[in-house]
């Protein structure tokens, strides 16, 4: 079976775009609801449960409220950019959705329809390029608001997103090393299990690239500006961050963009590390597009539906993980954030790429074919690296503020001075020595 072409292709693509965009928006609305409920559960509350059954219509009520609210234009705002910023925050997140494969190809009378809006040949590069566009919305919103808090939030956001983009891009390199391809559907095929086929790894990449998955999750949190990295909108310091001056639907656009970004990230992590739409322990969904454009496998509409469900479940789990992390961890300090990004993640991911490349090279040279042995060796390498990282290196040494070393030195001096003062005081009480004032000892400043 061949892929549909001509007018049917255009029609199918348009239809897919509309359906997936609608689905995305519905999921975004649901995600805001789930996030609030989950937050409530973590804090032993009930969360929104009034509008509709168990509060499911809350997003609708919120949307209606935002539509009907007054739109404010700050006097100092640059109107054109002020209006453009929310759109720029929302568009990249939604456009990213185009390259995510949701299910196995759907067979039709005119050929098969891949369940991906646009199977661009530069997949991962497209993702990285578009994801980095999201920073423009943040910067533009911060700058055009004409407010200092917004501006600070925008600056923080841009610095943070640019810093963590490096880490994110590098964490994805091992996947490209294994897949030998940057097309996104190739990632799914790589993780499917074809017995006796040496072209695929046969296991989800979560295992052979455990640390890579960890770094992708961490950097994705920073990329989507979520806790523990939500410094651009640190409400304790910046009122509301870059969207302080926004109201009504323009604010809602930022909100939607944020959640769309979150959903897209969850979907991408699903595709990269959780096998995409692959259903585990079942070979019936082994359907792939061969290099000559024909389809291998046995597609059917119910398989498409089933894989779609599998994908949604996996993406929801990743989303749940993100929310769970958000309601657990407190915010980083800004210097810690930058330290983590530049002084740790960048270095470690570079080393990680080298180690994985070395492992891949060694395995290839020693004639090991793709399969469970290959994946097992990589998993072993990852477990060793993870052990080194979390048990060996991370003992409070990974995260340390820029001024903390100096601070510790100061505190050491401070405690020394305190000890001397105390000894002198004891000496005075026992009537042996001079008063501490007379010794001229003064505790140095700078200690905590």
């Amino acid at each position, binding site marked *: 079976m061949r892929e549909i072409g001509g007018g049917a292709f255009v029609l199918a693509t348009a239809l897919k775009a509309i359906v997936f965009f609608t689905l995305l928006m519905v999921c975004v609305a649901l995600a805001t609801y789930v996030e609030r409920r*989950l937050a*409530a*559960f*973590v*804090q*032993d*509350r*009930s969360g929104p*449960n009034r509008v509709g059954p168990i509060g499911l219509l809350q997003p609708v009520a919120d949307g209606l409220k935002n539509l009907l609210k007054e739109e404010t234009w700050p006097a100092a705002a640059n109107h054109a950019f002020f209006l453009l910023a929310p759109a720029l925050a929302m568009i990249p997140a939604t456009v990213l959705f185009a390259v995510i494969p949701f299910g196995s190809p759907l067979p039709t009378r005119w050929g098969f329809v891949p369940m991906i809006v646009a199977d661009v040949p530069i997949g991962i590069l497209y993702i990285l390029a578009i994801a980095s566009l999201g920073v423009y919305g943040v910067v533009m919103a911060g700058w055009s608001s004409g407010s200092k808090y917004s501006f600070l939030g925008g600056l923080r956001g841009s610095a943070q997103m640019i810093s963590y983009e490096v880490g994110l891009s590098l964490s994805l390199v091992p996947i490209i090393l294994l897949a030998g391809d940057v097309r996104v559907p190739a990632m799914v095929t790589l993780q499917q299990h074809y017995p006796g086929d040496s072209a695929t790894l046969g296991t989800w990449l979560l295992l052979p690239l455990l640390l890579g998955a960890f770094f992708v999750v961490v950097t994705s949190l920073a990329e989507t500006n979520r806790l523990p990295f939500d410094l651009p909108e640190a409400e304790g310091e910046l009122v509301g961050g870059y969207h302080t001056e926004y109201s009504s639907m323009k604010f809602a656009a930022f909100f939607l963009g944020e959640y769309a970004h979150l959903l897209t990230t969850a979907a991408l992590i699903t595709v990269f590390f959780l096998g995409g739409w692959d259903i585990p322990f079942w070979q019936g969904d082994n359907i792939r597009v061969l290099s000559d454009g024909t389809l291998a496998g046995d597609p059917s509409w119910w398989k498409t539906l089933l894989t779609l469900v599998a994908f949604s479940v996996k993406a929801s789990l990743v989303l749940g993980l993100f929310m*769970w*992390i958000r*309601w*657990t*961890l407190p915010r980083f300090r800004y210097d810690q954030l930058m330290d983590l990004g530049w002084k740790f993640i960048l270095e470690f991911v570079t080393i990680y790429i080298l180690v994985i490349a070395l492992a891949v090279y060694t395995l290839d040279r020693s004639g090991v074919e793709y399969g469970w042995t290959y994946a097992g060796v990589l998993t072993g390498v990852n477990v060793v690296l993870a052990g080194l990282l*979390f*048990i060996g290196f*991370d*003992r*409070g*040494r*990974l*995260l340390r503020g820029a001024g903390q070393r100096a601070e*510790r030195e100061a505190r050491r001096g401070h*405690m020394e001075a*305190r000890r001397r003062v*105390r000894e002198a*005081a*004891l000496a005075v*009480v026992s009537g042996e020595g001079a008063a501490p004032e007379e010794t001229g000892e003064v505790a140095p400043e700078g200690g905590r």
Partner: protein
Amino acid sequence: MPGEVKVMTRPEGKGSYVRAALKGMGVTLKHMVDPHKVTQQYPEEKWELAPRMRGTHRMAVHEDGRSKCVACGLCPTVCPVNCIKLIPAEDENGERYAAVYEIDEFRCIFCGFCQEVCPVEAIHLSVHYENAEYSRERWVYDLERLCEIDHPYTALWDPADPSSE
């Protein structure tokens, strides 16, 4: 004698951020799956009010439905915020009654002095607090309305029984 000064040090170089984070996530997970919720679903679930809670006024009535008020004028006198308006009148038997008796619940501070001072135990406060209205005028309760209210009477503080048992 000078006491020992305890110097607290941060657990630096000992803890792991990742492991601490995982531990924290365990705690949040425990709460997430815990069905116990502290939220009170207000309109459905309500507080159990104390018997001495001082809320909306109500007027005690005789068996024939007349108010027990004898228009002595003590309650408007004792009221610290002047929220009681009383115009006394006398009927054909020479008994005093309140021709106009209005309480502005908006102005009232629910001190309960009126209940304490009433010689015939006519005006009372009641154990009730949900009295939202759409207009300010509705907050001025006239005698008829006060007589119709039937929430439980607020128990007065009794020196012999300080905890109202």
